[in-house]
């Protein structure tokens, strides 16, 4: 698929709208003047998520940041506009692999863990001998 400059800008704009508004996907497609089916296909090819998946990813990322910042699970749930705790908890668990309560308590120092080191630093944490095959 080739995405020309104008379409690229429209898709970037649509991504902002998905992250920052609650507009339905169809309305966002209309706002950036793309047909809904092309919009979904091109968005997924460019960003690796469908518009709906992208919006969910953003909400989960924000939830992680709020939890890491010390907010309670209930506060996080309602701040992000989820209708109920079970729906928030279920979605969070599917995406993160741990329920929000466990994620929150796993943070030894709230707010610190999201600042992952420059990840080349992870080299130092590899098991002994891991680099043996790359001389």
């Amino acid at each position: 698929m080739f995405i020309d400059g104008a379409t690229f800008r429209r898709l970037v704009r649509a991504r902002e709208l998905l992250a920052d508004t609650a507009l339905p996907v169809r309305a966002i497609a209309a706002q950036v003047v793309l047909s809904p089916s092309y919009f979904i296909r091109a968005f997924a090819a460019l960003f690796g998520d469908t518009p709906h998946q992208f919006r969910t990813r953003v909400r989960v990322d924000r939830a992680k940041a709020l939890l890491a910042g010390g907010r309670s699970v209930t506060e996080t749930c309602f701040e992000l506009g989820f209708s109920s705790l079970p729906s928030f908890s279920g979605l969070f668990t599917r995406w993160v692999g741990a329920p929000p309560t466990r994620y929150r308590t796993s943070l030894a120092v709230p707010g610190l863990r999201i600042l992952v080191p420059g990840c080349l630093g992870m080299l130092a944490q590899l098991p002994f001998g891991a680099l043996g095959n790359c001389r």
Partner: protein
Amino acid sequence: MLHIKLTSIMVEDQAKALAFYTDVLGFVTQMDFPVGDYRWITVAAPGRDDLQLALEPNANPAGKAFQQAMFEQKIPVASFESTDLDEDHARLVARGVAFTQAPTTAGTVKIAIFSDTVGNLIQIHQAL
């Protein structure tokens, strides 16, 4: 004596990134170890493990901001050499890859740019 063995790019989602860089691009996994909440993953071109690319999480907000800004300015973060750019372009298009620049001759190289689906634009180039 120093030599260049390892470089890295930030990725939005390491599992998706590994799938794209291997299944779609055709690189080979060199290392894949869990490190805390993340993974240490490197890939290399088949038969060419002299230079590995680490797929590192963009979980640091500064990294994510940098990555997003580069993407929105349409600036590729890496350039991979192709021995036959038109063939690689056709192969990747057939696998659903989105190109933001079709193969173009620019001076002494032919280049094209695509999205790696995990937050980066990647250039491919072939010397003419």
